[in-house]
């Protein structure tokens, strides 16, 4: 079924380069990968041809070589219910951008803002391109794999040392060191 959809997308949108991603395990979800530049045209095609009538979520996954934007569509048609995972890959981690689809699906408005907030993907032509969950002056994109949490925000310590149970953890570390030293010593003696 997804194979048909791939050929349909390819014939309707030139340059979409749609391809089917099938996992090794048959229990898992197959998805369709399209070219990031053509995402708006593909979404328009899906909406116009009534294959999918609602956008459910936009999820982003940071594989370190590229960031994958996963558009999760749902078909709320009673006769033919279904869902589709449509993916686009962005390789540029600094200036990664993709076209917005919020003019087609208003649901994408907030979802894209969340995706920007969490993974730092810029959505071109978005009507209200701001952070949504983190404060506006937040630095970094938390769900990236290389994110390091800030130590301070607005004068508040994010990880105050007194609250982190450092003594208890140090105790464990010290015990391990003593144990190792003892083992090493006993090894030498023997």
């Amino acid at each position, binding site marked *: 079924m997804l194979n048909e959809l791939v050929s349909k997308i390819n014939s309707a949108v030139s340059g979409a380069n749609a391809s089917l991603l099938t996992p090794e395990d048959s229990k898992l979800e197959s998805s369709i990968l399209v070219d990031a530049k053509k995402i708006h045209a593909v979404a328009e095609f899906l909406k116009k041809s009534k294959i999918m009538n609602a956008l459910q979520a936009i999820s982003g996954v940071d594989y370190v070589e590229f960031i994958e934007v996963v558009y999760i569509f749902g078909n709320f048609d009673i006769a033919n219910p279904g869902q589709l995972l449509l993916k686009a890959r962005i390789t540029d981690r600094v200036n990664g951008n993709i076209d917005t689809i919020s003019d087609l699906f208003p649901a994408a408005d907030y979802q894209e803002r969340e995706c920007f907030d969490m993974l730092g993907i810029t959505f071109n032509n978005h009507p209200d391109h701001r952070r949504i969950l983190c404060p506006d002056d937040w630095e970094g994109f938390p769900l990236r794999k290389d994110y390091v949490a800030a130590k301070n925000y607005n004068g508040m310590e994010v990880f105050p040392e007194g*609250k982190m*149970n450092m003594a*208890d*953890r140090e*105790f*464990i570390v010290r*015990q*391990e060191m*003593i*144990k190792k030293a*003892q083992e090493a010593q006993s090894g030498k003696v023997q």
Partner: protein
Amino acid sequence: MSYTVPHNSFKKYFYDLFNAVKTTVVGMWITFRYVWGVKSVSIEYPEVREVLPERARMRLFNDAQNCISCTQCAMACPVDCIYISSEKLPEGAEIKKTSNGQSIRLHLTQFTIDTALCCYCGLCTTVCPTECLTHSHDYEFAQYTIDAMKYDYLAPDVKAWRDRIVKA
């Protein structure tokens, strides 16, 4: 529940009026019936206490006498609030047994739980092989300072504490 709205506006006016009075009186009557005949549900807490179910997950308690320092609870804990450290028993020391017959091969030197971080999920108690780590039914331990929430289960006063918490 259902009614047909009269289209005549004059009639509708009085119908709405009648309807408003009627539904309000019905609602008031339902509330008024609670004055008599309905058993009070309030639990007068400090004097009367609700009997907690057997599985209730309140404060964690570790019976250090039965602990074999396997650190499985600390591994299972999703919030890392259990701190255990242990050292090898000196050679020739007597190996004690736990109440269910497992031998204690490590000397427990620290068993601390920070209840200010604990999320009371119960994952640590299910993995405990000797069932020494349990959820007690003790929920009344509000504190004035945050440091008092960290419990050392090897502290000398733990005996008295144990008698209070574990009602065997």
